[in-house]
Structure formats: structure tokens, C-alpha cells
């Protein structure tokens, strides 16, 4: 029995780095400091594993060697005209980097799960700009916290305990004030000082009303999205009167009517507030390395997600080069999915076309997407069986640890992608020689 300290958690965008794991016979048997989601992952990850590469023949899976599976994968990718490389948010930055190289080599589109969570936030940030901070600054200085369309007690269970409401800061000893805006009284809303239950699809109106009130303009309506104007005035006053406000927003803004325009409005509100006090905004990023995938794509291609290499150089136009749109228009003719389960998470019409494509899946689990695959390449769990780097939601990079040995012979995402890449290059060179 041994213990490993200061382990980074590979579950959500909080990347808590204070876990203490007890290991017995190369299995995690105890998790200290982790939340329910963290414990579920460390204690449950070894179930439903795929331990041999699989290739589909006549509708059925057959166990094959990595060599054979990689050769089939490389064949699919080199033959394709417009392959889609999707996923990337639950693996290391090093694997993402290899994936981008592969996308460029085969002239494909690489898109991340950002497209389904905070893609609209990125568009909003590109339009308006963002005043932000690290979570450490929020923890030590913020006296007002706002969660808008976000339920951290469920999706980021230790966010409030580590950085906001349930934590004293070096320069913030008194209890902080909490405002929650949502369409339901969520678990997080139960703990709020002020809870605004607004009508669905009306966040944009409420945000713009608050902007008007903050500039001392009068509203000539009695209510906005079901909230009396007087109550909105009270919120506007609370925001203006704080010393350091931090507004965290979730997919309650990005997935509803308005999408990126809601983000324009929320970032403009924060920008307005900065003329009167100190205020920051931050998207509540979901998967543990979705921020890292954005970062690596940005520094290697110039764009954060939905990058199209089909013309030989990177192009970015969400709505055209984003995964869901490509799938709905039935344009892709092959797909590689890494560290994600789009068959379970995309709207069905998009998932249907993905399944119809010759499909390669790199995943440790038998996921719904792996179930549809033509080639399954089993991989290690990043942050448990292999190391790497991940970015926290506030863009702080943290090391992921290798804690236990992977099952015998199982490779990491990065290793698998590098082998596919060299096999693709070899096949292309061969074609050049014998056209």
C-alpha cells in the first residue's frame, strides 16, 4: 500500500490539485479531498475497459494487434477527402498537439468539445474582450460572486469550496455575497443571498437591463423576464457597490437562445462595471482539459477550435467548420474521435452521420461512440495511467500524474496518435512512389 500526494484531478475544469490517493495492488482504493465526481472516476474507471484493439468486419468486432488497427486507421484517414478529428477535452495537451499535426497532415478538420460547451463564449470573447483573473485572485480578493446559468455544486463540486463562497481569502475574511441567476432553483441557488429565477431564453434581456441600470438609465417596463424592475435595481446596486466582483457563467448562457450574443452581453456588463469598480468574468469550463485543447490549438494554428486544414492552411469559421454543422450537412467522409463520446452527447442527427462515417475511436472505455466504431484503439486514462499537462479553467497549466501502471500493452493517446501519424506519412510516401 502506498499514498500519492498532490494529485491533479482529471474530471472537471477545476483541476483540483490537492488529492491524496491510496494505491493497493496498482489500484486506487481510497481518495482523499476529492468530490463525488472525482471519487467516481478514480474508483470506477477500470470498469467497461477495452483491452485489445478492435476492428469491425461484416458488422462485428474482431480483436486485432495495435499494428493492424493503426494500419486500418491510417488507411481510412489517408483515403478520406474531408475527415473530422473530434474530442480532445479529456486528454493531455501533448496528445492534442499530436492530433493537430495529424489533422494538418491529412487536410482534415479538428474540433474540440468546446464547440458544444463554451464555443459561443470564445466567440463572445473575440467580439468584446474579457477582463479575467486567476482563481487564486478570486479566492483571496473577491467579495461578490455571481454564478449565471451555472450550477457549480453539481458540475464543478469544489469550485465554491476552493475559490468562492465557502472559502476565506487572505484579503477577504468576511462572508462573500452570492448572486445566482438561473431558470430553476438549483442546488447552488439554494445557497445564494440573492436568487433570480428568470424565464428561459431571456438572459440577454436581463443582462441588457442590468447594463442600462448600471449606467443610471431608467427602465420604462415593470418587469424583465419575470423579474420586477425594482429587484433588478437592487442587483445593479449590489454589483456596483462591491469591491471585487467575479462573475462565472455556464452553459445556461451558451446553449440557450442568443448563444454567443448572451456572452457579448455578459462581457459588456462586466466591462461597464469595471468603469465603476473591479469586476472579472470567467466561463465555467467543463471537461478537465478543454481549456488546454483551446490553448494548444490557438498557439499551433492561431484559432481556438473548429480549425479546417482542407485547403492546406488553417481556417476558422464556426457555423461552417464546426463539428455539428459539418455532420448535419453530411460533409465529412471519415472521423477520428479521441477522448470524447459524441454519439452520447451530440444531437442525434449529427451523431447519425458520424456513425455512418468510417469511424476510428481512441478511448479507454467501451463508450457509445466506440460501439459505433470501425476501429477502436484502447488507450490509457490520462492523469491516472499516464501523465501530461492540462489547463485549469483560468488558464493555469498543471501537471497530470501517472499514478498506476496501465493494463499490459495499452498505449497512451499521445503514443497512439504519433503512431497513426507516422503510418499516415509512410502510406502517403508509398503512394507518391507508386501512384
Amino acid at each position, binding site marked *: 500500500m502506498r499514498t500519492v500526494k498532490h494529485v491533479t484531478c482529471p474530471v472537471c475544469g477545476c483541476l483540483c490539485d490537492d488529492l491524496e490517493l491510496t494505491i493497493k495492488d496498482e489500484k486506487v482504493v481510497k481518495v482523499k479531498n476529492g468530490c463525488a465526481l472525482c471519487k467516481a472516476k478514480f474508483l470506477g474507471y477500470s470498469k467497461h475497459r477495452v483491452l485489445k484493439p478492435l476492428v469491425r468486419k461484416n458488422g462485428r468486432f474482431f480483436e486485432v494487434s495495435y499494428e493492424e488497427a493503426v494500419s486500418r486507421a491510417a488507411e481510412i484517414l489517408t483515403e478520406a477527402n474531408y475527415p473530422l478529428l473530434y474530442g480532445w477535452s479529456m486528454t493531455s495537451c501533448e496528445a492534442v498537439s499530436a492530433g493537430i499535426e495529424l489533422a494538418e497532415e491529412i487536410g482534415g478538420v479538428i474540433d474540440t468539445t468546446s464547440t458544444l460547451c463554451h464555443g459561443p463564449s470564445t466567440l463572445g470573447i473575440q467580439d468584446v474582450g474579457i477582463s479575467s483573473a486567476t482563481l487564486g485572485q478570486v479566492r483571496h480578493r473577491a467579495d461578490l460572486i455571481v454564478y449565471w446559468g451555472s450550477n457549480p455544486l453539481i458540475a464543478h463540486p469544489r469550485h465554491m469550496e476552493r475559490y468562492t463562497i465557502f472559502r476565506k481569502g487572505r484579503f477577504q475574511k468576511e462572508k462573500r455575497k452570492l448572486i445566482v441567476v438561473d431558470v430553476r432553483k438549483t442546488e447552488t441557488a439554494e445557497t445564494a443571498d440573492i436568487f433570480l429565477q428568470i424565464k428561459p431564453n431571456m438572459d440577454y434581456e436581463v443582462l441588457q437591463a442590468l447594463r442600462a441600470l448600471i449606467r443610471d438609465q431608467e427602465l420604462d417596463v415593470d418587469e424583465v423576464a419575470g423579474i420586477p424592475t425594482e429587484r433588478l435595481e437592487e442587483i445593479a446596486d449590489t454589483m456596483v457597490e462591491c469591491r471585487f466582483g467575479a462573475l462565472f457563467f455556464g452553459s445556461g448562457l451558451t446553449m440557450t437562445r442568443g448563444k454567443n450574443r448572451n456572452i457579448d452581453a455578459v462581457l459588456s456588463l462586466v466591462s461597464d462595471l469595471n468603469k465603476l469598480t473591479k469586476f472579472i468574468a470567467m466561463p465555467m469550463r467543463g471537461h478537465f482539459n478543454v481549456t488546454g485543447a483551446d490553448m494548444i490549438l490557438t498557439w499551433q494554428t492561431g484559432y481556438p477550435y473548429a480549425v479546417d486544414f482542407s485547403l492546406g492552411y488553417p481556417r476558422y469559421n464556426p457555423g461552417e467548420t464546426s463539428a*455539428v*454543422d459539418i455532420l448535419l450537412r453530411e460533409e465529412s467522409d471519415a472521423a477520428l474521435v479521441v477522448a470524447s463520446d459524441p454519439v452520447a452527447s451530440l444531437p442525434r442527427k449529427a451523431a447519425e452521420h458520424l456513425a455512418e462515417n468510417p469511424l476510428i475511436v481512441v478511448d479507454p472505455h467501451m463508450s457509445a461512440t466506440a460501439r459505433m466504431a470501425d476501429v477502436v484503439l484502447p488507450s490509457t486514462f490520462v492523469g491516472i495511467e499516464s501523465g501530461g499537462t492540462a489547463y485549469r479553467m483560468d488558464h493555469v497549466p498543471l501537471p497530470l500524474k501517472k499514478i498506476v501502471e496501465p493494463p499490459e500493452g495499452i498505449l497512451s493517446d499521445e503514443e497512439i496518435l504519433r503512431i497513426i501519424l507516422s503510418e499516415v506519412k509512410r502510406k502517403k510516401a508509398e503512394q507518391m512512389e507508386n501512384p
Partner: protein
Amino acid sequence: MKVILVTGRTVKQGFWKEYGKFSKAYMESVSVCYMDARDMERLGIKDGTNVQVSTKHGSTILKALKSTRGKHSGIIFVPYGPWINGVVDPETDSVGMPSFKGTQAEVEPAPEKPVLSLEELLKKQFRKLNR
């Protein structure tokens, strides 16, 4: 009954997905529809009755559960997952993001219709598994 469909994360969905998507616990945590108690009364259904949730994009059978999240009459909440993804609006409004929250939907009692397992659901929805 006309409602607005909101999909999102729940603790059970987040917990059981780590144990594998084909587990019964994952299915039971995701193939559910949280409803306001008054809406359930209006539909004449009990906690645990199956309902059919439909939009113009498709329909699905889920188990209705009484919401513990305050009053939200006119809104149903369904955890993210393959059961509801056939029903949400795939339209991305040219920004890449489908409409997972805030879709107009219809809920009706369906006590005689079963909730499908993930394997049954995939076989029903995807041609590839039937070749």
C-alpha cells in the same frame, strides 16, 4: 402539455458516466425527466410514471420524476445524454452550438411504453448497428 425543455448536468449523471455508459445505473440516472409537481398533477401522472417527450426533431420515452428544485412549472429538466439527444434542436444558428436548452417540447403520459436501454436505443437510432 406544452413545456420548455432544458437539458443539463446532474450529480448522478456525472457520477455514473465514470462507471461506463452501458451500466444500468447510468441509464437510470439519465433516462429521466424532472417535472414540477403541479405539471405532473395536471398530466395525471405519479412520480415514476413514464412520459413521452417530443419536439419536431424526435421523441423519447423517459421516467418522470418530481423535481426537488423549487417551482418551475412549464419547464422540464432532462440530464444530458443519448436519451434526450434525439429530441433537442440540432440547429446551431451558424455558431456551431446546438440548442440544448430552451426548446419547445410536448410531454404526454406513456405508462405503457418502456424506457429503452442504451443498447436498444442505439440499435433503434443507428442504422450501422443493424447491418
